[in-house]
């Protein structure tokens, strides 16, 4: 199996404060990895280092065997690493269709026509085809997030990073987004998902990673992770979450 992402001995500092300590992890092609951990444990920071939205100081992050670092290759690497944000970050001045079609035209050099045809197909996949000509502000949160997922898919990245994609949603909209993510996972898309949705982690993840204080404490398949956590800190975290 080929590794899409390899992280070795990575440290990340905000000034004096060490946000990530000695991170080592790999993600294989087609794998779905869920990252859990308490607030402030460094989950967002970790996945934002993978596409260099945050700079790391030591160690290596590689995507498809290319080191992620500033330089002429960065844009090319970012094409291979999609990201879905907690607050969607759709382009508010563009229609739904234009949101999805923009980057393929500008970055992949696709013709506008082809990009729009594909954008429609992707919107169909996430159940948003009927809203192609609306603006983001005319959509509900769940709908916006589904468009954001389609926008990310449009670049055909090797891996998609999700940073709490359902945390900004009203409860009744969480399901529709999780459904889309689950069908992506089924179709073989490589995903790293930061979430508090334990149901999703159990059902969809191939592997669960638990973080605390900027470190990876434990990782395992979801079955063993949830039923037989090894580390006391993992046990405490699961206790707190599952008995709420």
């Amino acid at each position, binding site marked *: 199996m080929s590794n899409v992402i390899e992280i070795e001995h990575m440290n990340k500092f905000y000034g004096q404060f060490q946000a990530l300590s000695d991170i080592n992890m790999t993600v294989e092609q087609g794998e779905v990895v869920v990252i859990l951990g308490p607030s402030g444990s460094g989950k967002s920071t970790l996945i934002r280092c993978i*596409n260099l*939205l945050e700079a790391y100081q030591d160690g290596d992050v590689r995507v498809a065997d290319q080191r992620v670092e500033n330089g002429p290759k960065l*844009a*090319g*690497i*970012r*094409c291979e*690493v*999609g*990201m879905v*944000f907690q*607050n969607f*970050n*759709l*382009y*508010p*001045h*563009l229609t739904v269709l234009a949101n999805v079609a*923009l*980057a393929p035209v*500008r*970055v992949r050099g696709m013709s506008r026509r082809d990009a729009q045809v594909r954008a429609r197909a992707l919107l169909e996949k996430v159940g948003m085809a009927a809203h192609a000509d609306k*603006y*983001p*502000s005319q959509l509900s949160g769940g709908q916006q997030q589904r468009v954001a997922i389609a*926008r*990310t898919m449009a*670049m055909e990245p090797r891996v998609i990073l999700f940073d709490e994609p359902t945390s900004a949603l009203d409860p009744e909209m969480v399901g529709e987004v999780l459904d889309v993510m689950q069908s992506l996972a089924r179709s073989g898309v490589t995903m790293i998902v930061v979430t508090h949705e334990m149901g999703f982690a159990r059902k969809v993840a191939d592997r669960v990673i638990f973080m605390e204080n900027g470190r990876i404490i434990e990782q395992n398949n979801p079955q063993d992770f949830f039923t037989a956590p090894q580390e006391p800190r993992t046990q405490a975290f699961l206790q707190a979450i599952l008995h709420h």
Partner: protein
Amino acid sequence: MELLDTFFNWDVFVDAFPLMLRGLGVTVLLGVVSIILGLVGGLLLAMLRLYGYAPIRWFSRAYIDVMRSIPLLVLLVLIYYALPFVGIRLSSFAAAAAALSLVSCAYSAEIFRSGIEAIPRGQFEASASQGMSFFNTMRDVILPQAMRIVMPPMTSNCINVMKDTALASVVAMPDLLKQATQAQALSANPTPLVGAAVMYLLLLLPMVQLVSWVERRNAAGGKRA
């Protein structure tokens, strides 16, 4: 009736009108040229001020502060009367356009900067995460949104440039004010001056009203894209 005859003398006005109309043309041309140069230069300057290497950032900032501090009339006189001593001899139109746009681009740079800084970080991040270049991010994502925000202050700035074109009469440019003062001297009657004032108003009042209209619409319309 003596008052009417003095300030609103029809014969004097009719005599002066053709030249004043030509002056109005010069005023509008000067205004438009300076506004365009100021906008283009301002956008460039804002980019350097925000994203240039440190020395360039520092230099842009110094330029902006200097140009916003120096009185426009002083700059104009410097360009027109002092530069010839180093061999740079500009026509009155070129000197006025240079002074106006040098100052106006400093103001528009600050306006553009405030607009760009008002765009949420998530927009930059979304664009970067898709592998978009700096140029594409600016052109397709950031600037279209920033333009909407800066529309009212930018229009105000353009109105100021248009108003300040009247200073060009100091360097003997045959603009509206200059033509009016000459006609007034010739006819020994202030009617051309009143006429010029009215023409300035006709030119600028609609622009001022446009700004209030845009501001009111923005306040009412909220965030709708």
